[in-house]
């Protein structure tokens, strides 16, 4: 089984206009979280909202922010019961203050949960994440918390937001709705991740489709750039 599964949840708006598509998408996410938890997958990262999505119509953005708030409030009790640890990655400063607080509270309340780590990428950009890691390193050196001669790949990797996880690099990436690109998601972390692109729209992605993705992952020969001897 993969230790870390990442998902680009694409296709809600194509599934149904207005809020129905996004509401249906929440059900898919709920089911996937449950399956990951039951099947021993340690980390699930979901691409909920890209930094590029801020250009969408204001009404849709407000609807999505409201939906995120409702989902966190509704599911928090579930997360505590099921042992799900919630983490958020992305530029939270752009989010409404109420949502920032909800995420912070959810992270604090669930920080000791260990069955599944659910990482929500909200207002997230892969490029911005890399730049942010470099900025963090520079500040640490400036404040003398870090002795530094040179930036290196490993140092940057350690400061990426995904270092909140024991397994920061996904083993398997699933993107729904038939699109074949990363869309600025975890650009650094996905170097050797198995890519599974599926035609189903996100609200139609269920147990059968997840099993297909896992079977496909297990079928493939995987190498991390080292030769198989």
């Amino acid at each position, binding site marked *: 089984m993969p230790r870390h599964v990442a998902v680009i949840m694409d296709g809600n708006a194509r599934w149904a206009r207005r809020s129905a598509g996004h509401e249906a998408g929440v059900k898919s996410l709920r089911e996937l979280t449950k399956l990951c938890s039951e099947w021993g997958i340690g980390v699930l990262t979901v691409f909920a909202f890209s930094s590029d999505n801020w250009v969408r119509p204001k009404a849709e953005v407000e609807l999505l922010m409201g939906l995120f708030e409702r989902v966190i409030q509704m599911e928090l009790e579930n997360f505590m019961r099921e042992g799900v640890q919630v983490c958020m990655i992305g530029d939270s400063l752009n989010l409404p203050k109420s949502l920032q607080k909800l995420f912070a509270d959810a992270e604090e309340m669930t920080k000791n949960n260990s069955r599944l780590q659910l990482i929500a990428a909200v207002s997230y950009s892969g490029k911005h994440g890399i*730049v942010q890691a470099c900025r963090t390193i520079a500040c640490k050196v*400036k404040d003398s918390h870090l002795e530094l001669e040179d930036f290196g790949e490993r140092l940057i990797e350690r400061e990426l937001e995904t270092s909140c996880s024991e397994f920061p690099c996904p083993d398997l990436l699933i993107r729904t709705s038939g699109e074949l690109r990363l869309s600025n998601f975890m650009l650094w972390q*996905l170097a050797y991740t198995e*890519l*599974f692109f599926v035609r189903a729209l996100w609200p139609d992605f269920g147990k059968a489709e997840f099993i297909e993705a896992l079977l496909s992952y297990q079928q493939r020969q*995987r190498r991390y750039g080292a030769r198989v001897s």
Partner: protein
Amino acid sequence: MGSTNKMRGPNCWTARVGSFGLQLIWHFIHFIISTCYFVLGLADAVDSYVISSGLLKKYNDLNLGKLRYLAIGVDSDEARQTSKVIKLLQWLSDIGMKHVCLYDEEGVLKKSKDAILEKLSHVRLFEETDEKLPLDKKNMNLELASPSDGKEAVAKAANLLFTKHLELKSATEDQGENVFTEANMSEALRALGCSGPEPDLLLVYGPARCHLGFPPWRLRYTEIVHMGPLKSMKHGSLMKAIYKFTLVHQNYGK
């Protein structure tokens, strides 16, 4: 005590049989999946033959307007098959591709540069291209990339920015926000000579369905298609992948 041992015996046996049964089911499922992939592979081979034969008109005249920059990622073991790489580049040249980036994760293709260029006289290395030279249908710009152009380059670019940040440190209270920006990172990569364009399409040849560590700064909206092993590459599959790309519509997050 004796009755406990007697109970353990059947339970242990049941557990073993159950475990064996589950393993059998698991292997059977994978056998079915492998058979499906084999059948799909056969269908793909037939499809590729039909496309290559020119019977399907839509593949004969590809509209390459949207495909300005194509990247090919090759598994390093397979990249050692230089003749296959040359054949692939020849196909791309015949289709009319003008800008191609070849990448592998060990720099094998960079080492094979001379062997590749020797066989393809109409191909020019990216940095050697004379911009005044008109790119007609036969000429192609070729960039060879490796991890030194990817994560390593980002780390070097970060070092450049860090030096600038230290210079500002004494002058202002800047916390890095004005120095560490995406625009400045792109500029630093350009200064290092590692700032090729973002490919529109990345075709990956190799056993693993991943992008092999292609430079992350250039992959934001790149379409990624896994083509299978290089040794099994087919002209028809290449045409089909490029044709499908020409039909794609991107929203860029909107």
